[in-house]
């Protein structure tokens, strides 16, 4: 029996191709998604072991609740610890070095030609490293560590991108300005840095730059410890060292040491979790492909079984058992599943390789392994086989159990009724929409929530949203067959008016096997639903940004900094001096401000009243923004006000802890130093005089030279080393003057510049965003050029006019849309397979009927037309359902996140229309091959009675 099955499989191979492709596609997504995930994981852990290669890490001992809503993944945060602790730890036995590693993420490196080195999304990082604080994983290929702030060392990828060599002079732009540096060395690391530009800078410089942006320079989150500066410690040694450090750490330090391995595992996991969202997205499409695949296989085997029925009847009549007949069919399915899965594994592997090489071409080299593991392959194989067997099981059963007599005549058994599915499915869809409606009410409710039950009001909106989506999608698939007839009538109306006969035939053929039609359409339905939903969200996001700029932003230019968001004060002054510039409004971030003891979700910034007269039209729910700013009152965003229950007129205690230069102490330190220098010089002078007196002229001269050198050195001493800082706590009670509801400022607290200086401290405040209006009548492009010229020397400052400002926001969204279209293309390909297959099956079932039609004068074109219309109705049916569900989901999502920047609802009608037209084309294209097959059949064979 197995031999018969194998022989059958060989003769049916042509039939199997489409099934194999479908299975291969599905399996390739499964394998590819696992493989891609593993590649990312691998890359992350490689980077972790290279970039976090310390033997022991010391961090805060108390876990903090994560206050930031933006943080993703499972990152835990701990209390910060004193930086001074590093010195104590360094003295512990077995510790060769212990440092706080300062890293700056907003720097810009200029390449050989003086242009900024850009990356694709990866950061440019400047890390404090040097001979005394080495990075163990870095291996120098040329030169060595930077000795001071005038030198830098480059990671090989950074050197490659900037084309800089050891000894080359260039500039590095720190948040506070550019600095001339010389490349002192180039080093490599085992793991690629995923496109990041890594620069080693002098640790003192790194600390200084970091401190400028820090709330509290004396605190750090992590102290990194090497037990040995050249060779990594074993796990056991790490454990011993961390235990020793823990014993020595004073309880008051609130610090705790963990082994490097533990730390790496922890951070690897949290990074991997954060990247984990990619896989389910790919898997959705794998599921679609496999669903269609299984369905195609069922269809294919139905065809094969029908055609071989007489053979099976013969086998049965000469004594084969039903199980044996079943086996002949299943053997073919197993074979098909194996071939399809193998092809799919190869395809998935290739896809991941392609993605990896694509990324590396784009400037993001990855060293993570791209090869699928054995378990990936087994999963792929298993999935492919199971899906194939599920698809083949029913036809195989029919083959085995059909009585020989039934095998002889071609009657198609009538379908089971579909009313029940219609009722169940429709109920599910209705519940889904109800759930969405509830989501909407929940999201748009102010304060207390829509229901009297607190428990329900506290449900995160994601739940009803997701449940609604699941119910709607599954409901439509369940109910689909019940609506096929209606859909055929409606969608077939137009074709049946244009092509009276073929249109009407097609219209009726659609509802002949409702389940099959509906399942075929389902593939397209799911794909289109996902894409149109995201399309609505993306378009709304774009429209929201645009309308914000069109209606809200009155400025002619927006100025922002590419690096760390800091715009030097001098740059603002330079812009103010540009000819044609009328007004510059700068938003200055004030760090470390707390309101009634708690910080706000966004941050505090200081600005001028012009922000709300010349730049943005203020939207307030209470109070007047402009006068509030003028009067030195506090403005809070609506989100904060809602959160805290604040209203205009209420008084809020504002506290700020600032680390400031202790003028007195600094003056004293300087005076002390001067005195020390003076005393020493005096002492040398005395010695010289004594020498001169004793006749040692040469000695006296040498001493005089020493004095000169010493005083020179004293003069050149970096005054920064003498700066003493102190902590200053400012307290102030402010009255709330207005509650701002402009979407951009909802999470912020706003004060005027005077207040900012009283509360904060000038050194830690920095301008993050500036807006420029030009003089009426001046040429905008000219002014823009002039501004650009004025800020060129700061390298990192970008000037956007209104259109550019819009497009920077939307280009990101456009990129996302591109990915969506790729997914759509994918689901279309899969759907085409489904439709082709369904039509092929239906043609094979209707051989006689089509022959009859041909015999009574139907032309080839008319047969093609009929099948084309059938296919188009199927694909339009799927697309329309997808559009309805997808757009509804998009509308709900938009409404739910209206407060998070999706203010304007925009439905991409044009795009949706293109989807619809595309679906007609898809249908017509799908019908070509089945129609050809139908026409190849000689009329005689179809109608001959013998």
């Amino acid at each position, binding site marked *: 029996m197995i031999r018969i099955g194998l022989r059958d499989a060989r003769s049916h191979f042509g039939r199997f191709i489409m099934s194999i492709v479908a299975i291969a596609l599905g399996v390739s997504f499964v394998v590819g998604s696992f493989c891609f995930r593993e590649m990312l994981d691998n890359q992350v852990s490689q980077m972790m072991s290279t970039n976090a290669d310390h033997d022991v890490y010391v961090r805060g001992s108390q876990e903090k609740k994560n206050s930031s809503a933006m943080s993703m993944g499972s990152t835990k945060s701990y209390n910060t610890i004193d930086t001074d602790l590093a010195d104590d730890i360094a003295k512990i036995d077995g510790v060769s070095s212990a440092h706080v590693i300062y890293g700056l993420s907003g720097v810009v490196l200029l390449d050989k030609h003086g242009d900024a080195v850009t990356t694709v999304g990866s950061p440019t990082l400047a890390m404090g490293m040097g001979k005394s604080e080495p990075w163990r994983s870095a291996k120098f290929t040329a030169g060595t560590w930077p000795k001071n702030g005038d030198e830098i060392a480059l990671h090989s990828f950074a050197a490659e991108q900037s084309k800089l060599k050891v000894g080359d002079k260039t500039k590095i732009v720190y948040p506070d300005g550019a600095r001339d540096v010389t490349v002192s060395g180039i080093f490599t690391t085992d793991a690629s840095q995923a496109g990041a530009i890594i620069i080693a800078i002098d640790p003192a410089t790194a600390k200084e730059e970091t401190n400028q942006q820090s709330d509290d320079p004396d605190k750090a989150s992590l102290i990194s410890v090497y037990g040995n500066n050249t060779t990594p410690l074993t796990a056991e040694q790490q454990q011993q060292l961390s235990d020793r450090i823990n014993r020595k750490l004073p309880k008051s330090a609130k610090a705790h040491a963990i082994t490097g391995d533990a730390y790496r595992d922890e951070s690897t996991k949290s990074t991997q979790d954060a990247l984990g969202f990619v896989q389910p997205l790919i898997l959705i499409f794998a599921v679609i492909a496999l669903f269609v695949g299984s369905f195609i296989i069922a269809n294919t085997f139905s065809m094969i079984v029908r055609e071989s029925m007489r053979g099976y009847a013969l086998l049965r009549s000469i004594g084969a058992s039903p199980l044996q007949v079943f086996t002949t069919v299943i053997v073919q399915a197993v074979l098909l599943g194996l071939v399809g899965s193998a092809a799919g594994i190869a395809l998935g592997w290739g896809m991941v390789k392609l993605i990896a090489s694509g990324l590396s071409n784009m400037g993001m080299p990855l060293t993570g392994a791209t090869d699928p593991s054995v378990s990936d392959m087994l999963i792929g194989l298993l999935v492919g086989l199971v899906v194939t067997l599920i698809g083949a099981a029913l036809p195989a059963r029919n083959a085995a159990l059909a009585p020989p007599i039934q095998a002889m005549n071609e009657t198609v058994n009538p379908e089971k009724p579909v009313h029940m599915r219609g009722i169940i499915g429709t109920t599910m869809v209705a519940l889904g929409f109800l759930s969405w409606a509830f989501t909407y009410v929940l999201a748009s409710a102010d304060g207390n929530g829509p229901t009297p039950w607190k428990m329900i009001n506290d449900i995160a909106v994601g739940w009803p949203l997701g449940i609604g989506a699941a119910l709607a999608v599954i409901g439509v698939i369940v109910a689909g067959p019940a609506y096929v007839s209606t859909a055929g009538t409606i969608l077939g109306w137009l074709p049946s008016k244009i092509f009276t006969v073929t249109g009407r035939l097609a219209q*009726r053929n659609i509802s002949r096997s409702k389940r099959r039609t509906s399942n075929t359409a389902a593939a397209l339905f799911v794909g289109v639903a996902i894409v149109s939903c995201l399309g609505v969200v993306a378009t709304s996001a774009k429209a929201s940004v645009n309308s914000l700029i069109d209606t809200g932003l009155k400025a002619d230019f927006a100025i922002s900094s590419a690096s760390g968001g800091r715009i030097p004060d001098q740059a603002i002054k330079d812009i103010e001096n540009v000819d044609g510039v009328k007004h510059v409004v700068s938003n200055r971030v004030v760090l470390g401000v707390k309101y009634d003891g708690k910080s706000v979700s966004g941050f505090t910034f200081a600005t001028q009243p012009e922000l709300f007269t010349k730049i943005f039209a203020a939207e307030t729910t209470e109070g007047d923004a402009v006068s509030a700013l003028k009067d030195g009152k506090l403005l809070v965003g609506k989100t904060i006000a809602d959160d805290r229950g604040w209203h205009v007129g209420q008084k809020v205690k504002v506290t700020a802890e600032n680390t400031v230069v202790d003028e007195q102490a600094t003056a004293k330190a300087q005076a002390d130093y001067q005195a020390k220098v003076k005393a020493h010089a005096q002492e040398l002078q005395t010695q010289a005089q004594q020498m001169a007196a004793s006749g040692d002229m040469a000695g006296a001269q040498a001493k005089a030279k020493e004095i000169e050198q010493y005083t020179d050195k004293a003069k050149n001493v970096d005054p920064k080393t003498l700066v003493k800082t102190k902590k200053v706590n400012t307290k102030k009670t402010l009255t709330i003057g207005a509650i701002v509801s402009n979407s951009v400022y909802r999470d912020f607290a706003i004060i005027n510049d005077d207040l900012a200086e009283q509360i904060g401290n000038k050194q830690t405040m920095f301008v993050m965003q500036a807006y420029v209006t030009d003089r009426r009548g001046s040429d905008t492009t000219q002014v823009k050029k002039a501004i650009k010229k004025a800020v060129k020397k700061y390298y990192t400052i970008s000037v956007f006019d209104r259109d550019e400002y819009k497009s920077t926001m939307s280009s990101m969204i456009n990129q996302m849309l591109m990915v969506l279209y790729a997914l759509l293309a994918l689901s279309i390909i899969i759907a085409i397979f489904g439709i082709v297959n369904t039509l092929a099956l239906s043609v094979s079932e209707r051989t006689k009927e089509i022959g009859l039609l041909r015999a009574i004068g139907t032309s080839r074109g008319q047969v093609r037309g009929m099948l084309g219309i059938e296919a188009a109705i199927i694909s339009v049916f799927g697309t329309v359902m997808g559009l309805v569900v997808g757009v509804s989901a998009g509308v709900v999502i938009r409404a739910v996140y209206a407060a998070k920047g999706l203010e304007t609802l925009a439905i991409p009608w044009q795009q949706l229309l293109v989807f619809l037209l595309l679906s007609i084309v898809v249908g017509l294209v799908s019908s070509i091959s089945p129609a050809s097959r139908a026409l190849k059949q000689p009329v005689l064979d179809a109608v*001959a009675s013998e």
Partner: protein
Amino acid sequence: MARHTFHDTQHTTDKTPDDGIVARAIDLTKVYGSKDNEVTALNHVNVEFRRGEMTAIMGPSGSGKSTLMHCMAGLDTPSSGRVIVEGLEVSSMNQKQLTDLRREQIGFIFQSFNLVPTLSAEENILLPLQIAKRPIDRDWFNQVVKVVGLEKRLSHRPSQLSGGQQQRVACARAIMARPSVIFADEPTGNLDSRSSREVLSFLRDSVRDYGQSIVMVTHDPRAASFADRVLVLADGNITRDMQHPTYDEILEVFAGNDDDADNIDSVTATEVAQA
């Protein structure tokens, strides 16, 4: 009126002056299979079918009777020889010409599966005209429907009709377009004797009353006895050509070789064996 116009044109465009022949086969040969196992289904057959006559083709299974009809109707291509229907050479036609021929000159009635299952009886009857985008003559339609006795069944789907009713719908459909010739392939093969009689009477009446030409393949002497002329084939040759034979005369021809009469069971047995 449209019908008459159509009918008139058809006659005036006839290339040959009306010699009373609607279709003819000239030296028609059909060979199946490859060199090694050749089967000659038709062996240099010459035959003419006269206008306004019902001709029955009889013969044992494998005699070539169906092949002759299929070649005449353009459903099969002969190995050599010519087929001419209404002065048009069918044997050399391409697909488009064949489609036109089927639309204008030929009607079909098959043994089974004559109707499109998704269409009602009325729609099935009108289908050939609609496919050919020809105008529908309602008077003629009503007349045909009345003759076949389907007035009350017009809105029924084929699955709601009995076998005899289905076959009468097929007859109505064939005659609706008033083709030059109707080819009927075992039209009563699946019917009981009463339904057979109804269908055959209708076919005979259409010949008598409307001058319709019909060529019918059958193995049933009773059915053949309705014909004006009976041709008997054996081994690819016409062995008898009888004018208005009686039932007994036909029976006589087949006396002694009853086992040649087709029956469903023997067909099934052979085919299962082949499969």
